[in-house]
Each structure stands twice: as structure tokens, then as C-alpha cells.
């Protein structure tokens, strides 16, 4: 099923950042989000993931199909790698964590506490969570932060496998992942500044 976004307008902190955004994300397709800092990439991903409401427009085919990975990985430092991953696997329906550990080469770290991992290792663990969710659409916000070159290749491989299995991905990133994805530059959709007459709106 395709994710269709029609004439979407989104706001951050009550201020509109993007408007008139229309695109589709087909199964097997990767869409790379580009745009300068503060352009609204994170806000767009959070809106699509259902964490906030759009100002206007329609999002079709997103309900319960999105695996979101934001700036933080949602790891508990006092739980081991396996415990962290098993928790998310059981929240999302109890998939086997073996393939996820293997895809991000976390097997050797399986019994370590997440608090003792390096930043890159934590990120790899955070990304491996996507594999245990079993959700078809990945929404990734700067997934390669603190990853080394080898780990970036590992991640790109995981995305390729996901796409080959009929999944899709929307990735906000500034580096070239070597994926043959379509590039979506959010720059042209920048919202025009409006005089805010609805003062209370910012609080609601």
C-alpha cells in the first residue's frame, strides 16, 4: 500500500514551517529528504508518524504502518542489548531478534548493558529496532549520526533488504547513502510567514 501525502501543511511550535507538500511513497521506494537545518524535516517525519497533527492536508496509508526512528534511540542504559531489543520486539508483536542483531553485527555485544556502548553502537542498536517492528514504512531522522563508514554501509544494506522485501523508507539525511532513492527537497515548500492572529493557537 502506498503512502500518499496531499497538500500537507505542518507547524513547529505553532509556526508553520512547510505547506503544500504533496508526494507518494510506493512500496520498494526510498525517498531521501533534503533541506537546510530548520527546514522542517524532523517535523514532517513526526507528523507522518502521527506524533503531531498536521495544520492542513491529508496523509493516507500511514496508520499503524510506520516505524519511526528519531534523534534518540529509546534505549535503557541499564538493560542489555538483548533486553532492549526483546522489549521492542514484544511491543511490536514478538518477532525474533536474531536477524536484527545479525544485520547490525550486534551479536558480540548482546549481553552488554546499553549504557556501556559507544555512540555508534547505540545507534546501531537503535536502528536494529526497525527490523523487529515488522512495519513496512521506515521514517528515519538522521539515521547515520555517529555511525562509522562501515556501519553506514551496514545500514544502507539493511535499507536495501527492506526495500527489496516491499518495504519503503523516508530518510532525512545529509550524506549520500548510495541508495537509488528519489530525492525530495523540502526547501521549495517553505511556509510563508503569517501574522499570527490566533494567539491561543500556540498553546493548543
Amino acid at each position, binding site marked *: 500500500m502506498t503512502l500518499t501525502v496531499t497538500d500537507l501543511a505542518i507547524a513547529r511550535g505553532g509556526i508553520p514551517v512547510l505547506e503544500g507538500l504533496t508526494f507518494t511513497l510506493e512500496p520498494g521506494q526510498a525517498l531521501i529528504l533534503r533541506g537546510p537545518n530548520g527546514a522542517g524535516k524532523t517535523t514532517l517525519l*513526526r507528523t507522518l*508518524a*502521527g*506524533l*503531531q*497533527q498536521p495544520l492542513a492536508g491529508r496523509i493516507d496509508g500511514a496508520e*499503524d504502518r*510506520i*516505524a*519511526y526512528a*528519531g*534523534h*534518540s*534511540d*529509546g*534505549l*535503557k542504559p*541499564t*538493560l542489555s542489548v538483548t*533486553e532492549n531489543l*526483546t*522489549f*521492542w520486539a*514484544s*511491543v*511490536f*508483536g514478538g518477532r525474533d531478534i536474531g536477524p536484527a542483531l545479525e544485520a547490525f553485527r550486534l551479536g558480540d555485544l548482546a549481553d552488554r548493558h546499553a549504557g556501556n556502548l559507544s555512540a555508534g553502537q547505540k545507534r546501531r542498536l537503535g536502528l536494529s*529496532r526497525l527490523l523487529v517492528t515488522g512495519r513496512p514504512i521506515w521514517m528515519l531522522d538522521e539515521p547515520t549520526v555517529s555511525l562509522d563508514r562501515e556501519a553506514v554501509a551496514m545500514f544502507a544494506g539493511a535499507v536495501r533488504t527492506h526495500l527489496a522485501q516491499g518495504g519503503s523508507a523516508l530518510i532525512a539525511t545529509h550524506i549520500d547513502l548510495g541508495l537509488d532513492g528519489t530525492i525530495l527537497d523540502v526547501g521549495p515548500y517553505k511556509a510563508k510567514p503569517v501574522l499570527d492572529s490566533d494567539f491561543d493557537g500556540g498553546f*493548543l
Partner: protein
Amino acid sequence: MIALLKRDLVLALRAGGGFGLGLAFFLIVTVLVPFSVGPQSALLGTIAPGVLWLGALLACLLSLDRLLALDWEDGTLDLLATAPLPLESVVTIKALAHWLATGLPLVLAAPVLGVLLNLPGPGFLWMVISLALGTPALSVIGTFGAALTVGLKRGGLLLSLLVLPLYVPTLIYGAEVARRGAEGMTVATPLMMLAGISAAVIALLPFASAAVLRVNLR
């Protein structure tokens, strides 16, 4: 849901999880009261139900600020909000985990501490019953407060100010059950009020907590 409960309990027991913190606080408060009141066992016995209830309430309050704040800081709340679990059940499970890690130990410790305060004989049973009925309400109301203040840096003090007034009815009827029980009077009316408050709060507040959490996650 079971996975979330299990994880929260494991986290509470691991290093820095705060299990036993409330219990230790409860212990210290009740040990300090006889020191400050002086050696008047009759007076101590009279105020024991109230002191135990107040101590339990403050001990519950102590661990509230980490109830949701830690999950907010490391991004877990965002991920839970996009997970198949409804937020209503997330906050209910969180409250249940808080009660199991904080409230239940307080209930079990109360009779032991009652001895320190010279609690009259018939009061022990009613002390335990009133705390067992009342502390779940404290956890659920506390979860609501934690949901309101999630995302605020150092929101702990504000959380206490928001939650303490909401604790008043539970405290009044809970301490009343314990006091009447200790004096050998009939406890039916305050006991039913206490049970009613707990039942209503458990049934309704998770919806409010989930709603404010959705607003705070934006």
C-alpha cells in the same frame, strides 16, 4: 503490555532504578517522628495513623518525577506513542509498575513501622487495608501529574505542587479509615469513600493522562 510492565519493573530493580527509595524515605520519616514528638507513647499512638498515611503519601510522591521523564528524555515515549499500544494502556501500565515498585512495599512495611509509632492493636489491619486501597489511587494520580509535566526540565517541584492537592481526598479518607480502625470504631463509610475514589481515579484518569501526554509529545 506485559513486556512494558516487566521492563519497568526490571528497570526499577536495576542500578539507579529507585526501587526501595520510597520505602527508605517512609522508614526514615516514621523513625524521625518519635524523635520529634518525644517519649509520649499515648500521643504517638493517637497520631500514628495520620503520620503513616502522610509518610506513605510523600514516599509515593518521591519517585513520580522519573515515572515518565526518563522515558521522555531517551526517546522511548515517542517510540511507544508510535507503537501498537494505545497510550491509555501505556500510562496504566506505568502507574501499575509504579504501584508495584513503590506503593506495594509501603503497604507491606506499614505494620512494621506501626510498631515504632505505637499504633494501637486493632489499627494494624485497617492501616494495611486503607493503604492497599489508597496507594493505587496515589500512583494513578501521580502518573497524571507526571504526564502533565513531562518535557519540562526540572519539573519535579511543579509536579509535587500539582499532585499534592489532588491527593487530599485520598489522604482524608485513607487516614480516617486507619484512625477509626485504630480506635475500634466502624470504618464502613470512609472505607467505601476511599474505595470509590480509587476506583473512579483508576477508571478515568488514564484517559486524561494519555490526552495530556499526546499534547506534550507534539
